[in-house]
């Protein structure tokens, strides 16, 4: 297997405040994150709101500039690319957004929306070529080509998300970053979209980074899982049935409900609150809520260590 994407020590610092009455404060939305993605794999990124999942997605595609770190994509140093080659490279890496309602220009027809990537890349198309390409892309995502002349408001949420996927596929990318692609959809439509993504991955040999807060969906869809807490990867599960070794991952799993009344569990309440990202403790960020934390956890930051191919950032892994 070849490595498609290799991320090393990636960080993004945001600064807020400034001015006469507001002190400058800074936070690391993404902090020293390293991982790699092999061609054809589906890597899930899970975590609660504010943990830095979406910032990580945008950094990986260089939609925002990182504060430090390296991103290698297809053996190219992504962060060293000048604007023109960067634009050409973007054809290989695309994103599908959470909200299909705002991801498509309401004044574009579906045909315009799915052929816009070609204009951005400077690919000239005749009208009939564009028609053919539109029909091909729409059929790839299971939409009727008769929708080509429609506007987004005439489509349902699920159909719009299919258009979002068609648009991302237009330029034959190798990598798709899916940022909560089903979070605004009903479950019956979510299942349709997930099956579509599975089918497309097999047909087009795509690689996915799948960002979600829904752990059961991630376990279902992904090959490996990164668990994030307050900007850091705390555990990288090498497979979906690997046992959780970080207490936070354990907590996340325990908080996920099974859709089966026979498997009812008593939820142990998790104490404490998520610390402010502006004022992180010196040690492990999860220490204040962790049932097995010791003095060491509160003072010394655990690093992500992979002794046996299962990286975990914890002084006392389970």
């Amino acid at each position: 297997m070849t490595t498609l994407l290799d991320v090393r020590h990636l960080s993004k610092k945001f600064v807020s405040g400034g001015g006469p009455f507001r002190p400058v404060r800074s936070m690391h939305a993404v902090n020293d994150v390293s991982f790699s993605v092999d061609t054809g794999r589906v890597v899930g990124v899970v975590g609660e709101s504010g943990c830095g999942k979406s910032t990580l997605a945008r950094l990986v595609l260089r939609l925002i500039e990182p504060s430090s770190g390296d991103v290698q994509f297809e053996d190219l140093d992504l962060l060293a690319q000048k604007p023109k080659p960067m634009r050409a490279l973007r054809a290989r890496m695309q994103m599908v957004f959470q909200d299909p309602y705002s991801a498509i220009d309401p004044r574009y027809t579906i045909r315009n929306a799915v052929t816009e990537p070609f204009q951005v890349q400077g690919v000239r198309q005749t009208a009939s070529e564009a028609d053919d390409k539109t029909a091909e892309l729409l059929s790839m995502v299971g939409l009727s080509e008769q929708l080509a002349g429609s506007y987004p408001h005439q489509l349902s949420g699920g159909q719009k998300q299919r258009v979002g996927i068609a648009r991302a596929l237009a330029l034959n990318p190798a990598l798709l970053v899916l940022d909560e692609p089903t979070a605004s959809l009903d479950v019956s439509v979510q299942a349709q979209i997930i099956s579509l993504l599975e089918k497309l991955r097999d047909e087009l040999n795509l690689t996915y980074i799948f960002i979600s807060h829904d752990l059961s969906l991630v376990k279902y869809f992904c090959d490996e899982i990164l668990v994030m807490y307050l900007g850091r990867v705390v555990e990288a599960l090498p497979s979906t049935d690997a046992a959780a070794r970080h207490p936070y991952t354990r907590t996340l799993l325990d908080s996920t409900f099974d859709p089966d009344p026979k498997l009812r569990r008593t939820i142990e309440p998790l104490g404490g609150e998520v610390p402010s990202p502006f004022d992180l403790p010196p040690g492990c960020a999860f220490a204040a809520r962790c049932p097995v934390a010791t003095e060491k956890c509160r003072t010394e930051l655990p690093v992500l260590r992979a002794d046996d191919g299962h990286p975990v950032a914890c002084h006392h892994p389970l």
Partner: protein
Amino acid sequence: MTMLSVQDLGVSIGPIAPLSGVSFQLERGEIIGIVGESGSGKSLTAMGIMGLLPLIGGQIDHGTVEFDGIELTGLSENEYRKLRGGRIGLITQNPMTSLDPLKKIGPQVDAVSRLHLGLDRAGAKARTVELLGDLRIPEPASIYHLYPHQMSGGMKQRIVIAMALGADPDLLIADEPTTALDVTVQAQIIRLLGDLVKQRDLSLVLITHDMSVVAQTCDKVMVMYAGTAVERGPVQDIFDNPKHPYTKALIGCIPHGLSETVRLKGIEGTVPGVAQYPSGCRFHPRCTIAEEVCTRNVPVFETGAKRAAACHFALEAAQ
């Protein structure tokens, strides 16, 4: 003892009829889950019970809603006001918008017991602090003086629950109480609601789109689709042996994250909008076993029985 009995409830808003054929019963100490996708009529059902339909220009068209022996459908606004927030508490979806951002949270919770229980200022404050403690809010006496923006989402949802409990209700209606929250917080709030029902012998109507939440908490379930009820029954039975093809398909749409490896099957097509409800059974255009009769005749949803499925071809027990 039956706490809430809804019989063939139908709602109209002007010329359209977005909700019809909703029937269920809820005993004291029980939790019923009302589950369905968006546009299925879950929230309209809650608004119908709470007498809040005039807010959106709607009214109850037919059917009855009986709460602890009191018929609610004919009540005047003044009579309803005494019940709402009093014997019937409401927990709304978004804790970010159900609190007044300009007031400290303590006095907001006080208002409920002052109005409904007639407590004085000191009495109401003592009651609020006690309630906050019951909801496992740390240091309730100092939390009392915070503003909503100083609290996390999960904490705010606890405050909303405290307000719903302010006047010792018999019935709680929770409309997607955890949808806006993270999974770990959701798990805590769901556990809290379950404990409250046990400790206070409440009845709870839990409205959700999440079948997993239903599976973990409810005693019985009513499944809704496109503005009507399609199936009702005890929770275990609904999951083991769904009789309506929609219920069965809906269960097939949820990943069994932890037990797993059943492939997900979506349901072809989309939920029809209010103006485009199909004739006959509203699920027939998406149903895999629909026949000609389904396009013509509306299937009957039995009102009395424990178990009911509005389907001409109700599925037999899975072997």
